[in-house]
């Protein structure tokens, strides 16, 4: 039972989800509240990772964050080594990979909030920050939950990006999905099945727990 790979996978998913929510909430707020002409292109860019094959995304990260680009060199100068083959590198890759899965539910949730409430908040003197904090966030709690859920499980299943950028380092970048892949490549099918089962059980258990926490749907029928 590859507990180390399990730990890497869960840590990666958790760290990515937290950072991604912190980034995606202000970004989504900007998207729903701005009149800027940049909105449409920026929304398109945030959706782009869905269209890019993960291995392609991973490859570009490898090159763009490597020592051959100015950006990569700055990183190496600051940290002493390139971004690839590190847990932080995977976090950055996962953030880009799962970005649309955070932004889309948040944008949908924010724009579902009654416009009248937003206008009333503005009339009563709420700043944009207070509008986000006291009105939008509380009223889109379910969408935030959905965004967190999607990011987490999407990252748990991540493979292509990790394969390209990870370097398969036990304890740092060897995730469960890579472990399964290695086992399959080694023709160790029994081990691969066990690891895959573990992955599925974790994913389903965490999803079920989160769906239970979100409570019944508004139209749910009560048996009496």
């Amino acid at each position, binding site marked *: 039972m590859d507990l180390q790979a399990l730990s890497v996978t869960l840590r990666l998913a958790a760290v990515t989800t937290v950072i991604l929510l912190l980034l995606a909430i202000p970004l989504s707020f900007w998207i729903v509240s701005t009149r800027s002409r940049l909105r449409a292109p920026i929304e398109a860019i945030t959706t782009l990772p869905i269209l890019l094959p993960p291995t392609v995304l991973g490859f570009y990260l490898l090159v763009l964050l490597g020592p051959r680009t100015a950006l990569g060199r700055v990183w190496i100068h600051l940290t002493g080594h390139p971004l690839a083959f590190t847990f932080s590198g995977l976090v950055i890759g996962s953030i880009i990979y799962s970005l649309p899965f955070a932004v889309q539910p948040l944008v949908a949730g924010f724009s579902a909030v*009654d416009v*009248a*409430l937003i*206008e*009333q*908040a*503005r*009339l*009563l*003197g*709420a*700043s944009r920050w*207070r509008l986000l904090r*006291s*009105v939008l966030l*509380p*009223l889109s709690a379910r969408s935030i939950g959905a965004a967190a859920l999607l990011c987490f499980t999407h990252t748990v299943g991540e493979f292509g990006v990790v394969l390209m950028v990870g370097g398969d380092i036990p304890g740092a970048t060897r995730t469960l999905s890579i472990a399964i892949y290695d086992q399959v490549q080694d023709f160790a099918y029994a081990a691969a099945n066990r690891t895959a089962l573990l992955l599925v059980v974790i994913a389903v258990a965490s999803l079920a727990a989160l769906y239970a926490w979100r409570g019944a749907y508004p139209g749910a029928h009560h048996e009496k």
Partner: protein
Amino acid sequence: MRSDTPFLEAKLEHRRGSFILRAQFVLRSHWTVLFGASGAGKTTLLRIVAGLTQPATGSIRLGQNQLVDTTHKISLPPGQRRIGFVIQQAALFPHLTARENLGFGLHEWPRIARETRIEELLRLFDIEAMAGRKPRQLSGGERQRIALAQALAPRPDLLLLDEPFNALDAQSRVAIIEKLRSTAVPVLYVSHDIADAWQINADAIVLENGRIVSQGETRAVLAPQRDQILAQLGANAKA
């Protein structure tokens, strides 16, 4: 009560599709009725005064504040206009209690002043008993009272009401209007109901197809409409 100096002067023009709103008016009375059929542009006019909609051209002054002046590119954000606005569907925050809703606009106030003001309004509108409840636990009438209290809490210079009493029966409506008229806040009150609009010591502005066709003291301005209704009632009585 009428003073000779208007506290609001407005001149504005707004286009949406083929509908054009062009209005020039002043407010001097503590109670002004904005009267007109549906689609005449009443809500649009209120929204422009409140700052929720931008006019194509216009200039609006409230007290000492220039709210809008398109020639000088001035447009004060809604939160800085010191205007309260209550709409038909009371816009109460569903996740906050009545008390918290009431206090929403008092965020900047010192705590004691804020709490005193909240208690004052709870008493005035007779909603103390429901202060701790959330909007979904309250009736339509109760929600409207809280919405009014919420809009009045920050002591605005003007209160805009867009037919907020449709859910109330006639008696409750009269009671609430009396209560509002007893506060010091001037009101611009949208109505298409002549009985509602027929107030003493009040002004009226009649809006028709985006144009103001008459403005002045209520009983003078709305007399034609009153006569029309009476004639209808009389005709019905005879039949």
